């Protein structure tokens, strides 16, 4: 059983903040097949297309038949913990300040022996399941978990190095006016976040759901206007040092493409709220997030972008909107690289049309704001980096992997 996490005390402002350190990040190009699987929370190893042998560590030829055809495929993650050790001595500064650290050899049922991090509830000789995670530097690692759920298992210190669990962390929801922002506030409060800051621009203007939002426990409404650099900077100054997770819920959805619309007013507005809003957040909150990545139980952990899956392939029915989403995705990739040295994950959550007023005319399937919020919290608990929520997002993802050109043609019909 894992000792339940204790809510951290108020930080002594005179105490030095522990600087973030990184575990070894170097990987071979082939090993990034594991990165891709870990980013989406899948367990995949190389499986030989010719002889079906399962292989690990990542290779460029099958050790059973020398075939070069070794795609990463989902495989059974169960095995037995054959031997374990507790590392007390490490030349790497990251591990030096985290020892004792348990690692072990897991013999997978599908074949290979895997050196893995060990969850505190795993027992030598017993059955375990392996998961692929991204560690503090975003590199793929294996962790062995007990075969069955154990009490408080999310609170294990080694596992928590690889996740962004909102429990006892402080969150900023950047826009609380929308149904998505409000659903998000509720989900984080329920997930055990210590404070849920919710940004509201022009607080004097009432909005639907205002009363319900205020009634959510631990929600604190704060002034925040993503179209105003000063407002964003002010909020970061006020609360930046005690915000561990930023969830950008700002949205600007309008139907239509370019040809049938006159002028740039809408396009500018979209860019201002979505793209420049993200840039403003990155500039104001990025430095302090990156500096607090190793700041104890409530260290800075994640920056969450809610993106349309059509950032990956333009959907002409909402073409101008999709183009802005694509700009945001590109910015998020840059932000990911910039925050990684601090151990802060940039989580991109892709969804199709939402069950909200601006998608009123779009037929189902659509994603309910509460479902999107649940997916975000789940992704943070599991430490994911790329998340696809709902049937449309899954569909676009799958078709992109097969034939992007076919998707481009078909999506305009």
């Amino acid at each position, binding site marked *: 059983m894992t000792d339940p996490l204790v809510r951290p005390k108020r930080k002594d402002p005179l105490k030095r903040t522990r600087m973030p350190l990184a575990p070894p990040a170097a990987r071979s190009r082939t090993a990034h097949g594991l990165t891709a699987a870990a980013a989406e929370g899948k367990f995949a190893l190389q499986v030989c297309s010719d002889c079906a042998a399962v292989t690990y560590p990542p290779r460029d030829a099958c050790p059973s038949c020398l075939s070069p055809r070794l795609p990463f495929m989902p495989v059974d993650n169960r095995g037995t913990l054959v031997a374990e050790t507790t590392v007390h001595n490490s030349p*790497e500064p990251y591990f030096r300040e985290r020892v004792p650290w348990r690692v072990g*050899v897991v013999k997978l049922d599908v074949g290979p022996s895997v*050196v893995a991090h060990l969850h505190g509830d795993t027992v030598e000789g017993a059955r375990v399941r392996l998961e692929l995670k991204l560690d503090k530097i975003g590199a793929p690692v294996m962790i062995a978990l007990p075969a069955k759920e154990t009490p408080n298992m999310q609170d294990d210190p080694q596992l928590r190095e690889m996740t962004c669990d909102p429990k006892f962390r402080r969150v900023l929801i950047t826009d609380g006016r929308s149904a998505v922002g409000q659903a998000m506030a509720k989900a984080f409060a329920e997930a055990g976040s210590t404070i849920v800051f919710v940004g509201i621009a022009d607080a004097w203007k009432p909005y639907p759901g205002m009363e319900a939002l205020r009634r959510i426990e631990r929600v604190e409404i704060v002034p925040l206007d993503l179209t105003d650099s000063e407002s964003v900077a002010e909020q970061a100054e006020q609360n930046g040092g005690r915000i561990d997770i930023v969830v950008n819920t700002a949205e600007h959805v309008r139907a239509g493409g370019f040809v049938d619309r006159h002028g740039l007013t809408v396009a500018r507005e979209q860019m201002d709220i979505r793209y420049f809003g993200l840039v403003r957040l990155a500039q104001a909150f990025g430095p302090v997030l990156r500096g607090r990545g190793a700041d104890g139980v409530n260290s800075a952990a994640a920056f969450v972008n809610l993106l349309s899956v059509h950032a990956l392939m333009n959907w002409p029915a909402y073409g101008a909107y999709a183009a802005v989403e694509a700009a945001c995705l590109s910015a998020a990739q840059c932000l990911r690289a910039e925050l990684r040295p601090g151990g802060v994950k940039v989580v991109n959550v892709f969804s199709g049309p939402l069950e909200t007023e601006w998608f009123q005319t779009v037929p189902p399937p659509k994603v309910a704001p509460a479902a999107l919020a649940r997916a975000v919290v789940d992704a943070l608990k599991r430490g994911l980096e790329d998340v696809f929520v709902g049937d449309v997002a899954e569909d676009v993802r799958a078709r992109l992997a097969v034939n992007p050109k076919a998707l481009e043609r078909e999506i305009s019909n």
Partner: protein
Amino acid sequence: MAGTRKSYDGVAVCVPVTIPYRRYSVNSAHWWVGRALHALTRQARLRPKDIDGLVLSSFTLAPDKPIGLTQHLGLSPRWLDDVPLGGASGIVALRRAARAVQAGDAEIVACVAADTNHVDSFRKTLSTFSRFAQDAVYPYGSGGANASFALITRNYMNKFGAKREDFGKICVAQRDNALSNPHAIMKKKLTLDEYMAARPIAEPIHLFDCVMPCAGAEAFLVCREETARSLGVAAIRLLSTIERHNAFADDPVQVRGGWAMDVGELWAMAGVKPDDVDFVETYDDYPVISMLQFEDLGFCAKGEGPDFVRGHSLTNDGTFPHNTSGGQLSAGQAGAAGGFLGLTEALRQLAGKPVGKPVPDAKLCVVSGFGMINYDRGLSSGAAVLARAA
């Protein structure tokens, strides 16, 4: 199969050289290689140009390879080899040099292993040791070899009932042997109580299960018997050798090395039995690996290592003299030179000129090597049976 191999008749192994180790060195590996070659030429009264074959083993020559060392050191060999096999380097260099000499491709082959040890060079070596280590071992606690051998040791203990005391006995006996070796880095007597009380490094590995990384060099010459005679140096005979890589890949955790595959051939080719040898030099990066070698070289059956150790003193003046200069555990591990340490010590014992305490009437021995923990296990193994000239 074994019968098809040609014998090493006529080959002489001679002029063992050890450049005393240092914990840290400000000098380069090149400097250590140079010192070893200098000592070889001095002791054999050779001119550098008489060395027409060179085989080098080193982890720390970068950016150079052995070819760069020929120009650096002013040698012009007609036979050059690189044996980057860590702890198996000595045996492999020896068997390649022996065949080159037999075939006449070279007359005098210098076999040299040298490594330097700078402050922080150990961490750099660990993190870039191999692609599998980089992708699938080093990110897991970065315990390096200590953690990898901890898992092998733990598994061996689980499977065969070995106790920490059994590994302790190997370490303590080697320390006894080291006390008469002036070159040994560890100079203080070690008791079993001290061994047991040492701080954990990666359980069940504790402090005295670990070698001390250091800088140093080991070297010897391989030539024909008549060449050795004309140089006036003691010639040791090579009776047989084996070499194997990536054996038993399907064992979930390493419980045996490649020796187990080839041990029959090793003794058959030498025409002797395990019981005939007067002493044994194993590769002792961790005591569990010495125990595997006792089993895999045929001194006892698999799983009987602990009992075998309990039944012998393992000291130079006792039963089953083992790692008679203290091995790497007490003399220090000078990188690839650790793979030569047992060989140079064996050559001295067989010639009756040990640096430390002699093994009484040492005529026959087996030396084995083991190296390159690429992912979760050592890949290379080798062994050689050596005899004093009749």
